[in-house]
């Protein structure tokens, strides 16, 4: 059977992607160099742990979907996911490879298990994945992904409890997949930020570090914290942290934290935490 060898949570922002392109071309701005260097150990960990697949739980920002139909949960079932044009053209990266076999297996298990997914045979992926991806992987991309998009752009968003349950179901489904693939589960969103209203630019490092500290062993406490509290104290888009509960719940309670990093480059708290399952290197 396939197995989950680890997981990580990571922030995303359009500026993270733009900073990468600029940084690699003309040298890094000091605030973004910190993030670049802070993510190097995650890249090294991925090289050591050699995942065959990445299961990525993320949120779209009205770049593939629009409000004619906005799914709460949408799974990408394809062998190729193109980069979305967010309104200012594409970044110089190839499309992302997918794995429709694993995605179909997940569709079967999740829908029959009570999660009524929207199944997307075409899915353009935005900065929710593309902004951090080049920090951790080298193009041409060699590890296929299975993307699952969660509505975070209009209320009501799914509850933290529902995201935890979804994560558990994802974990069970991957572990029931025939084959021997090594899978890393990724959640991306948050951390503290708000990009509209007079509270634009709110930065709550204490909240973000509190979240990173407690996700491994006290996720239940974080999940029981009302999402409105994250929004009130960390900005409306801090609600995206709920996505991380799905990643945590897909993993076992035997994980160890191998790395964590945090910085606040501009208007979004940028954090990452990496967990590894026992015997992941076997």
């Amino acid at each position, binding site marked *: 059977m396939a197995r989950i060898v680890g997981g990580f949570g990571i922030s995303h922002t359009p500026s993270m992607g733009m900073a990468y392109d600029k940084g690699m071309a003309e040298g890094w701005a000091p605030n973004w160099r910190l993030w670049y260097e802070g993510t190097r150990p995650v890249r090294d960990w991925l090289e050591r742990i050699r995942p065959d697949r990445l299961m990525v739980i993320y949120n779209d920002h009205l770049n593939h979907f629009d409000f004619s139909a906005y799914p709460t949960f949408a799974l990408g079932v394809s062998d190729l996911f193109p980069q979305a044009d967010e309104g*200012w053209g594409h970044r110089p990266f190839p499309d992302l490879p997918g794995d429709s076999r694993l995605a179909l297996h997940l569709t079967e298990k999740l829908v029959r298990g009570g999660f009524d997914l929207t199944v997307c045979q075409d899915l353009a992926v935005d900065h929710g994945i593309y902004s951090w991806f080049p920090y951790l992987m080298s193009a041409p991309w060699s590890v296929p992904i299975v993307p699952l998009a969660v509505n975070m752009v209009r209320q009501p968003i799914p509850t933290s409890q529902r995201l935890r349950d979804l994560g558990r179901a994802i974990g069970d489904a991957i572990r029931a997949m025939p084959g021997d693939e090594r899978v890393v589960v990724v959640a991306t969103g948050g951390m503290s930020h708000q990009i509209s209203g007079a*509270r634009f630019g709110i930065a709550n490092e204490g909240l973000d570090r509190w979240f990173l500290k407690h996700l491994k062993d006290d996720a239940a406490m974080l999940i029981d914290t009302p999402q409105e509290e*994250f929004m009130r104290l960390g900005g409306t888009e801090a609600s995206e942290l709920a996505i991380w509960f799905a990643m945590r719940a897909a993993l076992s309670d035997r994980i160890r934290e191998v790395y964590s990093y945090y910085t606040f480059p501009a208007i979004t708290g940028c954090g990452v935490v990496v967990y590894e399952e026992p015997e992941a290197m076997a």
Partner: protein
Amino acid sequence: MTNSIPFTLDPPGTYVYTAEAALRGHRLTAFGLSLRRPANREAFLADEEGYMQARGLDQASIAMVRARDWTGLIRAGGHLQSMLKVAATVGQDLWHIGAHNADLTREELIALCPRKVNAIPGGKD
């Protein structure tokens, strides 16, 4: 120029994107999202008013786009992610939108950020 940030989710500090906002701003948001296509960006830049009329926007919305009234557009239900595409198409960015929302100049807002606060759930605000 103040950097105090209230821990509330009320306007004008925060515009939570509710289902009602989505309904109110459906055409406006759809217009902004149409600019995900390069050909539409060109058509819009060539004739802003005509492009918006063809998309069924009312005169009040058209006037707000023409005035780059980002706060008015968000109040009218234009989703930030959609209005950001309008801003980018006309050569502005997220900082222009945020500054308009915060009633600051873009330079003032950049100088204020990150606007540090310190509170965790269950603690004192």
